[in-house]
């Protein structure tokens, strides 16, 4: 029983976090930080899930979070590997330097 705290609050919080994450992806040029921002977005989603799970007493919400975390881990593995290999060839993690293909 958490009086005073309504789903609305949680939703707003997660929404804000999610947006901040998205913002991060848009404004940062450091690919690692962009990537972290994406993680932030995922977490915002998790927060929403847990909140909903709690508010409607449906455990599957929490299970979903579990999977999201797993996926996040997998993404990180691939993503960091990519960043590393890009760094090897371009010796930079500035995403804007990765822009030969265009038009």
């Amino acid at each position, binding site marked *: 029983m958490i009086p005073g705290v309504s789903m609305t609050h949680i939703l707003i919080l997660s929404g804000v976090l999610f947006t901040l994450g998205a913002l991060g992806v848009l404004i940062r040029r450091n690919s690692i930080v962009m990537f972290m921002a994406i993680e932030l977005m995922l977490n915002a989603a998790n927060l929403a899930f847990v909140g909903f799970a709690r508010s409607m007493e449906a455990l599957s919400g929490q299970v979903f979070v579990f999977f999201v975390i797993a996926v996040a881990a997998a993404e990180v593995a691939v993503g960091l590997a990519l960043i590393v290999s890009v760094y090897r060839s371009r010796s930079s993690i500035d*995403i*804007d330097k990765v822009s*030969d*293909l*265009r*038009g």
Partner: protein
Amino acid sequence: MTAGTLFGLAPLIILFPLLGLAVNMIAGRRIGERGVGIVASAAIGLAFVIAMLQFIALGMDPDGATVRIAEWIVIGQLEIEWALQIDSLAVTMMLTVTGVGGLIHIYAIAYMHDDVRFQGDPSRFPRFFVYFNLFMAAMLILVTGNSYLTMFVGWEGVGLSSYLLISFWYEKGEDGIGNALAGKKAFVVNRIGDFGFIIAMLVTFWFFGTLTFEEVFREAEVMGTAAVGAATVITLLLFVGAIGKSAQIPLFIWLPDAMAGPTPVSALIHAATMVTAGIYMLVRNAPLLELATVTPDIIAIVGAATALLAASIAVARFDIKRVLAYSTISQLGFMIAAVGIGAYVAAIFHLVAHAFFKALLFLSAGSVIQGVEHAHHHGDSPEEDFNPNDMRVMGGLRTRMKATFWVYLMGALALVGIPPLVGFFSKDEILADASLVNPAVFWMLVISAFLTAFYIARQALMVFFGKPRSKAAEAAKESSILMVAPLVALAILAVGGGLINGPGLLPLTHFLEETLEDIEESEFIAAVAIFTTILALISIGLAWLVYGRRPVMSGGTDPLQSKLGPLWTAIRRRWWVDEFYDWLIVRRYVSLTRWLAEVVDDRFLHDWVHDTVIAPSYVRATNWLASVVDLRLIDRGFDGLGAITRRGAAGLSVLQTGYVRNYAVAVFIGLVLVVSYLLLR
């Protein structure tokens, strides 16, 4: 032998010329000139025989007959068949055409023999007779057709053969193209007339529901006053056709140029037969003319005016054939006027008469020309730019070409209308009727008759009298017997032809009555006859005063020039009609087409609409112009392609910056837009 069977033979009259044509076309080169000539003339001869048989048949069965061959165009109500209508009018024409035509064919054998050599391409000899027979066939279809449409077949057919024969020496004439252009002019001008003819047929069909003469006239009779309007329109349109074919104002300009054809052509087509088709066609439509209101007067005026105008122009010609050409136009004017005042028989009579003496005149002119040309070619020092048609280089041929001179004289007198020659009766009949019906027409015709006498006398004097004005004229010799014989025959006709419709018995009138119902017998008015004859004699005298004593020197000016002053210039320049048309129509049309083609089509529809309207609207959306451009580039290689199209497609390519974060923005924008849509709906 019954009339029916004889009528059954009628199709042969068209078949024979066609056969001759075919034979000459296929075997022409092998059977040699003589063969070709014989075949062609024989074909016409046989046709003449058939015509005679039809005449006899009509004697047995005056009603005539319609000989059906096959159906042609049958669509619903529209039923047109290949069929010949044999009646007195048709037979009259058949006889004239085949008769005169046959004589001219014979004459042509000899004439062309020399002509092809003068012009330097003997191989064309057979082709001439192919065309000649083609013409005869077409002309006979014209006169025998039982419906407007079948008549129209012949109508256009003669136009075609005249086109071919005028441009027979297609590489000669002014800057080598003159003759070809003359031919084209003839055809196109005729087409203008045909336009009228076609529209006339359209109206006829939708008003009377048929196109065969019999039925149309029956219908018209039944409807009576109800058909007046239609009859007027139709006859007017038909008259447009006649104007074209019979070279009346305003479309007479093609006929003088048509003299580019060899002389037999001028004689046969542009004097005796084809040009009279218009008169025949109008007479054929007498029943409608009777109904029509305005038309006859218009026809009469136009005819008379033409007669006058042409006669005046003829006075100032130096080219022996051109004089005759304009004389032909003016005589055709007489006939048209006759039709206009309702003197159908007179018209036909004059048509026949004219066929005789005008053919005669042309042929003798031809004989003169060749005589001179012969001399010119065999002469020791042939001068350059020697024109054997120019009367100013002739003179004194009376003694050198006796036969020709005499027959020519007969023809001339017949034309002038000196009794008892054929011209006297025929022309007098017209004048007599005119004096009763329409004084204006009468006086115009009288004046032109006066001029006629003058210019023909002038010609006679310049050609045959006085002293030779050139070596060639001196050395001129009489033409071969083969040419003279037909001349003589025609001369006889010109002299005795009057009997065909001499006053009193009027055989032709009675003969034609079978076809043209209720035609009043034209009575002989002595006063008119005497008056005109005297007038003619006066003008001949005048001519002698002017040309007889001091003949015109070659290249010299005409004595009249000083006397008439500006008037002379006017007639000399043919009243500037040709120039006017050229300025008004030809130039305009040419520039119009240029404009349409270059400006409207090329620049506008092609480049402007396609490359400026369609294209940029694509560019705006899709850089279409670039793609067109680059299409053109494809030929030269894709080198420039990338650059150009990229420039064109900048619109979209710019957005594809290659920066991931921009792409992310796009995604984000999409999201926000969609959410806002859902919020706002």
